[in-house]
């Protein structure tokens, strides 16, 4: 088995560098979608890690320019895993009970086509204490 080392990074670096230059020259630089995966104890225990990995791989596979990152608990522990999708120029949307199928649907419909998908947690939602 050939074990990967940092020396192997050079090839991938060159490939990525070329793509970044293309992106900077393009018109879409300010149109990057942001996805935040709630990754606190509640999220992790419900499978948020797998969803985040899936989102990164799937968006890269489809060539969608997006930043996938983690956030803390948004207070929707009952609905984990939850993700927040921020499309530039639109209000942020939080989806609950996101499994792989739902994540795929969100990428296909919401992020690529701009259509909202079932499973949105309304912004008017309040916890018992509020």
């Amino acid at each position, binding site marked *: 088995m050939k074990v990967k*080392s*940092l020396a192997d990074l050079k090839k*991938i*670096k060159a490939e990525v560098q070329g793509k970044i230059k293309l992106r900077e020259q393009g018109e879409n630089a300010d149109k990057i979608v942001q996805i935040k995966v709630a990754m606190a104890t509640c999220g*992790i225990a419900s499978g948020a890690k797998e969803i985040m990995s899936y989102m990164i*791989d799937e968006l890269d596979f489809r060539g969608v320019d997006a930043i*996938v990152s983690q956030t803390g608990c948004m207070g929707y522990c009952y609905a984990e895993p939850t993700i927040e999708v921020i499309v530039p120029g639109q209000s942020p949307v939080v989806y609950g009970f996101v499994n792989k199928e739902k994540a795929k649907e969100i990428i296909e419909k919401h992020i690529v086509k701009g259509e909202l998908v079932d499973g949105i947690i309304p912004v008017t939602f309040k*916890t018992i204490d509020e």
Partner: protein
Amino acid sequence: MQELSLHILDIIQNSVRANATKIELTVTENPKSDQYLIVINDNGCGVDKETLELLCDPFYTTRTTRKVGMGISLFKHSAEQTGGTVDITSEKGKGTCLSASFSFNHIDRPAMGDIAGTMTLLIASYPQIHFIYNHHTPLSDFEFDTNEVKAELEGVPINNAKIIKFLKELINDNLEMIGANLK
């Protein structure tokens, strides 16, 4: 949580929330002396003595979105099930060190699982943080340092999806080579 790597992902979020700029994870496998050690060290804001005593309390949290904070207590419970324990030391302004000891051979010790995934998701989310991951087995040692990766990348973002995928494979390959016990 089924895997130790999930606990580690969870505990490191505490370091991130403490504004750490450097987070070091060290895993030491020692089957002969029946020990499996996990140490997480950060240079975050640290806590005072009174707060330190509350950290293992599942009803203590600094979050305002909910009233429980179960990350550390779940991890501690998991360690104690194998006869091990979790120790935390902290100094305000300097950082916090959490060390968990597990019995290596105990039937209740959860598997480490996808630690490469844990590290790379953290790097993807917090590219500005300096992560160090050391894994020691009786066979050999593996050392991973994001500063070394960044030096090699010369300005190409470390959180690019292709780089992250490569780093995950690199960690997995090396862990396999040193005979890390992940399952």
